[in-house]
C-alpha cells in the first residue's frame, strides 16, 4: 500500500530531488517516486504549490528551457540559500527519524 507524504516532509523531498541538477516539476515527481520505489503517493498540485512557495522564499530559482519532448518546461534549481536549507532539513529529519525509530522500537528504554 502506498504511503502518503507526511505533512512537512514535502519541502525536504523537493530540495533533495533538486540536489543533483535542475529539474522541472514533472521530473521532480518522477524522482521522488523513483527514490521511494513508487511507494510514495504525492498530490502533485501540492508539490507545485510547495515549489512556488519555496521559490518565493528564495530557496529555488527557475529557467524556461526546452525539455526532452521539445516543449518548453520550467526548470528549477537550488539557490545557495536552498542548499543551506537542504542541509539543515536533512540533518533535522535524520535526527528526528532516529529519534522516532528509538521511541517506537518496542520495549526500548522501558
Amino acid at each position, binding site marked *: 500500500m502506498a504511503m502518503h507524504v507526511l505533512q512537512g516532509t514535502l519541502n525536504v523531498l523537493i530540495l533533495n530531488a533538486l540536489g543533483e*541538477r*535542475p529539474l*522541472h*516539476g*514533472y521530473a521532480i*515527481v518522477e524522482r521522488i517516486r523513483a527514490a521511494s520505489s513508487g511507494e510514495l503517493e504525492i*498530490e*502533485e*498540485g*501540492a508539490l*507545485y*504549490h510547495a515549489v*512556488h*512557495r519555496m*521559490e*518565493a522564499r528564495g530557496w*529555488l*530559482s*527557475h*529557467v*524556461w*528551457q526546452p*525539455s526532452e*519532448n521539445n*516543449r*518548453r*518546461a*520550467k*526548470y528549477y*534549481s537550488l*539557490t545557495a540559500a536552498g542548499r543551506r536549507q537542504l542541509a539543515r532539513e536533512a540533518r533535522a529529519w535524520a535526527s528526528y527519524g532516529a529519534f522516532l525509530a528509538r521511541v517506537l522500537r518496542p520495549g526500548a528504554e522501558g
Partner: protein
Amino acid sequence: MTDPARPTGKRPATPDAVDEELTYHVDRTVAALVEAGWSAEAARQEAARRFGDAARWREKILSVHQEGALRMARTTYGISETAALLPRLWSAVGRDLAFAWRSLRHSTGLTAVTIATLALGLGGTVTMFAAVNAAFLAPLPFPEEQALVKVYQANERRSDVAVPLEVALDWSRDSRSLTAIGAYLYGITANVQSEGDATRARLARVTRPFFHATGIAPARGRIFSDEDLALGAAPVVVIGHQLAQRLFGATGDPLKETLRIDGHTVPVVGVMPPGFSFPGNTDLWTAIEPGGPAAYGSRTAHNFNVIGRLGPGATIASAQAELTRLSDEQAALFPEMAAEGLRPNVVPLRVDLVGTQGQMVWIGLAAVLCVLLVACVNVANLMLARNLTREAETGIRLALGAGRGAIVRLVMVESLTLATGGALLGLIVGLWGTNLVGALAPDSVTSGRPLVIDGRVVALTVLATFAAGLLCGVLPALRTSRVDPRAALSEGGRAVAGSPRRLMNALVGIEVALAFVLLSSAGVLARSHAQLEAVDSGFRTDGLLLARFSLGSLPESPYGTPDARRAFFERLEAEVSTVPGLRAMALAAIMPPGFSPNGRFVIEGRPDAGQAHFRLVGGDYFRVMRIPIRRGRVFTAEDTAAVPQVAVINESLAALAFPDVDPIGQVVSMPGMDGGSGVATIVGIVADVRHRGPTQPAVAEAYFSYRQRPWRTYAMTLVVDSSAALPAGTDAIRAKARLVDAGIPPEFQTIEATMAPFVDPSAFRSRLLVVVAAVALLLAVVGIAGVVSHGAARRQREMGIRAALGAPPGTIVRLVIRAGLWPVGVGALLGLFGALTVGRFLRTFVFEVSAYDPAVMTASALALLATGLLASWWPARRTAKIDPASVLRA
C-alpha cells in the same frame, strides 16, 4: 542546454506561466500513462486524479505570487494594491505576445501564408487609402482650403449650371457669409509674345475678388487695382511663375515687361508664386471690369464659374441660405431670372475638383476592403483549424482555472501579431501599388495629385490593421474559449466543442460571395471597356497630328472680321500644302471628340425639319478623317466665297429630314449658328460618325465649308497624317505658320491624346477591378483549399475505413470534393444577390453592357465553381492516396 547559473525567475509568475507549467505536467503524465498501455481517456482521468483539485492548487500557487508581488510593489514603490495590478496585466500581455511569437515561429509555413494573405489584403487597402487621401483628404494648395467653395446654380436636372456675371457680382456685393466671391472664365488659349516667337498660354478672365478668395497673394507686383478696373482702362495682366520663367528666364524682371496677347500690348503688373495655376492650368489672368458686364451677356447667360471663401463662422448651409435669399431678391427684380427657376448651389471646392471620378475612388476602396475581408476570413479559418489541435491544451488550462478572458486574450494577441506582420509587408505591397495606380490612374481620379503614403495613410492603415486583427481573431477566440474542459480531457482532444466545420464552411461561403461580387464587377467593367474599345467612331482615331490655331481671345483682335480670319486659314492651307510629303490636310473649327454645337435646321419651302449639329470644316476633311462619302460629293477647291454655298449632310440627317425626297439638291440653312446668313445647296451625303465621343451615338449633322461661312473661325485645327514625319512635321508646320503670322503659333496634339480622356478612365476602372478580383480569387483558392484539406484530414479515419471496405479512390475524391463544393455553391448564390445590389453603383460607369450582364454573372459563377473544384481536387487526391492501414492503426 541547462544553465542553472542563469536564473530568470525574479519576476512573479503570471497565470499563463503557471498554466503552461501545469499543462506541461499533466500532458507528460498522460503521455507516460498512454505509453504504459492506458487508454487515452483513462490516462487523462488518472492524470487529473493524481494532480488533485487543480483549480484550488492553481489559486493557491497564484496567491503565492500575488502576495509576493504586492509586498514587493508596496515596499519598493509605496504604491497601492490597485496600481500594482497594472504591471501585472501589462506583463500578462507581454507573456501572451511572447507566447504568440513562439507558437507562430514554430509553424513557419502557416505563419507565412497568413502574413502573405494579410499583406495582400492590407497592401491593396494602403493603395486605395492613398488614392482616397489624394482625392479627398490631402489639403488643396490654398490657405484654409476648407473654407473654399464653388457656387453654381441648380434646378431639378442639373446641379452645376454656370452663373451669369451680373448675378455673381450682386452676390459678391451683398453676401456677408462669403468674404470673397470671384467670378471667372478659364481655359481660354491666348497667343502670347514678348520677344521672339509667340507661345500659346492659358488665360483666365477673373473679377478682382478671385485672388482674395483663393487667399494667394502675388509673389511679386500686385493684382488688379481700382484704376485697372475702371471702364475703358488699359488692360494689365498678372502672370504665373511658370510662364514668367518660360518668357523671361530666371534672371529677367517680368514687372518691367509688356506682353503681346493676341496682338494687344499689355503690361505685366504681378507674378503669382510657383505652384499657383488655378483654375485648370492657367498661365495668365486678366481682369473683368465690373463696368462692362454687358459684354459678358445678360442675367440669363450662364457662362461663369464662381469661387467663394466662407467667412468666420459661416458654413456651406448658411452660405447656401444667404445666397438663396439674395437670389430671391434678384428674381423679384428680374422676371427673366424668376422664369428660369434656378437656385444657388454651394459645394466645397474639393468636392467640385474631384467630381464624378471620386465615386470611382470609393468603388476601388470598397473593392480592396472586400479583398481584406476575404483575407481575414482565410486567416480566421486557418486559426480555427490550428486552434483545434490546441483544444486539449486549452481544456487543461480551463480545467486548471484559467479565465476564459485569458484564453480570448491570448488568441486575440496572436491574431493582432499576425495582422501587424501583414501590415508591415502590406505597406511594401502598398508602396508598389501606389506607384502602379499613380502611373495608371487618369488625373481625373486623383484630382491630379500624386499618390503618396503619408501620415494620414499610415494612420488609416493602423486602424485597418487593428480591425483586421480583431476580425481574424474574434471567431477563433470565442470558439476556443467555449471549449468544455471535461470534454477536452476525456475525449483526447478530438472534436472538443463540436467540429468547427460548419463555421469554417460558412466563412468559405462568405469569402466566395465576396469574390463573386468582385469578379462580376470586374467582368462587367472589363466587358464595358471592351465594348468601348470596339466602338468604331467612324473617323480615324490614330496617326493624326493636330495643330490648333486660335486667332484671338481679346476683343478688337486683328482678326476681328470673318474675312481676316478666312484669309489667315486660306494662307495657312496654301503654305502648309507646300510641306514636302504632305499628301492631305484638313481643317475643323471643332475637332472631335467632344463638344458639338447644334441648332435649327431649315429646309427651304418646307416646315422646320428639327435640329441638326453644325460642323465647319475645310481642306480634305473627309479624306483625312476617313469618313466615307455615301452619295454625291464633298467640298472642293472650287467651293469658295465667290460661288453659292454648298452643304454636306450625314446619313442620320438625311433620314431624319428627308424621309421622302432626295436630299441632294435641296436648299437648306441653319440660322443663328454663326454670324452669317444665306442658304446652301446639299451636294453630298457622308457616313455617320461619333463626333461627340465614342460613348455618344451619332447625331444628325450638317457640314459647311469655312471658306463660304467664315464667321465661326476664331480657332481652327489643322489635321495632317502624322506619318508625314513627327516631330519633323511639327517643325515644318510651325515654320510655315510663322510665315503666315508669327504671332499665331500652333499648339500640337495627337488624335490619340484627344481620345484618351474618353477611354482612359474606363481602362483604369476595369484594370483596377480585374487586378483586385484576381487577388480575391487567389485568396479564395487558398481559403477553400485550406478548409477542404482540414475537413479531409478530420475525415481521414472515415475515408480509411471506406477505402479498407473497398471504396475506389474515385469515390473518396468525389466525397471530399463534394464537401468542398457546396459552400462554394451557396457562396456563389449569395454573391449573385450581392452583385445585383452592387450593379446599381456600377451603372453610371458601364457602356453598352448591363451592370447585371447575365453572361458575366454566369462566367463568374463558373469561374468560382472551377476555383472550388481546383482547390478541392488537390486535398482530395491526397486523401485518396492515404494508406488505409496506417490511418486505421493510428
